[in-house]
């Protein structure tokens, strides 16, 4: 629980809060990017190099861009005239509190199971991750590959559909 952790945590939480509280949708997307960066820094702080850099590469480099493209292509970049908050916000608060308490219970349970002394996180090299992916987790890897291929083909078909309709 060093000072670095507090700063990074503040960055991540601040980014996430800004992502839901700001009026301009593109500002929300950029704040979400800051939240992603905060999470990546948390990974790096735990010496999980591969996870941290993959987080930056995938989330900031691809997902954030996807989000802003989606906002732009659906003309959501105009500031909404009525308020940002929906009418039924107390219900949302209840659901958020429920999810939070669930996660907090799970984290605290694991803290009770492990010893309280600070254990050094095991250094996981990229080699070990690679071996695990090809060795033990090869089935999830192949299924994810199939899923990505399906998504890619679907995107191409959706984009090509206009040509069919235009003919």
């Amino acid at each position, binding site marked *: 629980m060093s000072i670095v952790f507090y700063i990074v945590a503040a960055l991540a939480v601040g980014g996430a809060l800004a992502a839901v509280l700001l009026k301009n949708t593109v500002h929300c997307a950029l704040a979400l990017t800051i939240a992603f960066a905060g999470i990546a820094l948390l990974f790096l702080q735990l010496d999980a*190099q591969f996870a941290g*850099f993959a987080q*930056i*590469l995938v989330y*900031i*480099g691809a997902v954030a*861009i996807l989000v*802003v493209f989606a906002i*732009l292509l659906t003309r959501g970049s105009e500031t909404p005239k009525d308020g940002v908050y929906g009418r039924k916000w107390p219900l949302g608060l209840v659901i958020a509190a429920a999810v939070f308490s669930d996660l907090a219970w799970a984290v605290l349970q694991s803290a009770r199971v492990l010893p309280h002394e600070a254990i050094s996180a095991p250094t996981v090299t990229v*080699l070990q991750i690679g071996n695990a992916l090809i060795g033990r987790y090869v089935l999830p890897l192949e299924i994810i590959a199939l899923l990505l291929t399906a998504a890619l083909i679907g995107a191409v078909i959706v984009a090509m559909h206009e040509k069919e309709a235009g003919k």
Partner: protein
Amino acid sequence: MIDKPIVDQLDQVFILLERWIVSFLPAGWQAVASVVLNVVAIIAVFPALFAIAVLLERKGLGRMQNRLGPNRVGPFGLFQPIADGLKSLTKEDIVPISADPVVHFLAPVFLVVVVFMGYAVLPMGRNMTLVKMDAGLLFYFAMGASTELSVFMAGWSSRNKYSLLGAMRAVAQMISYEVPLLMSSVAVVMITGSLSLEKIVAAQNQYSYGLPHWYIFTPWGFAGFALFAVAATAETNRSPFDLPEGESELVAGYFTEYSGFKFAEFFLGEYVGMLSISGLGATLFLGGWSAPLAILGWVPSWIWFFGKVMLSICVFIWLRGTLPRLRQDQLMNFAWKFVLPLTLLNLMVAAMWRFLGEGWERWVICSAVLLIAYVAMGRIGMRHGHIGTRKYRYAE
């Protein structure tokens, strides 16, 4: 320190200098001071190289176009970058009224920050990497992916249709060429067995019969380098892939609304990115800081690294002076239908190279496969080369 041979000392001169400066500080501060000194060195050296690159570009392009470049400021125009810098600093900073001020300000800053982060993992000489990371290459590509976000921020915050259009095109181009860039580097990672850039250079720093084991001298390395070079040119929005910033196409694309220092920041970001990706290309394929012949090993390693980077810059400038700009759809077709299949094939060829064992067979087989694939894909791609009547997709 004095008993080491002078060649070694010259090779490690910057490390020794840094240790000497840091030794004046108390022990607690030494680690921090060492890092700060390294960072300051990078921030000082690479913008200086940027100034040299800009000057080289203007004079080089001029000579290629049968004219002199700038030659009034200083002898042979050598002080032109200083004049350019002063001009950028003193120009009025215009922000359009309807622009988003925060994002408009942050976009170039974000670009410059992210581009400089990439230098943290480049091995610029023996023992001269800023941060020795196990997953150094992945860090580099993570930073490269973040530059696209800054381009988008610049285009959107200007509230200008041309800027937005330019930004969309630029981001589409950069995403499309990100995949071949990574794939061609993955072949190198496969053969070396590590993502760490120091290990990649160490694997290439061996010599047989006086010739180095650089990856470019292997069939898959040569193809990989060519594909990496194409993808790198597209990533940094250089000619012939500079449609997003082409002056005759979209005014200036995503940095239309930027003036004065912010424009200089974008310019700096682009050229520093070019230097950075040249450094990565040199590390992955050209052996980083290793010398081309074993007998030339006495020349300091950092001279070889920077020499290779400047050579790559010269090649970039040469390409810019020669090739016309590619149109957006030509660019995208090229990426997805030509470069990407070839990079995937290159991965397979690299695997074949590894498992065929030493000997002349693997040279012949790998070269033959790559050559046949290249010629075949070229023929297929140029099949519709005849100029017929144009078919328009949307205009009826």
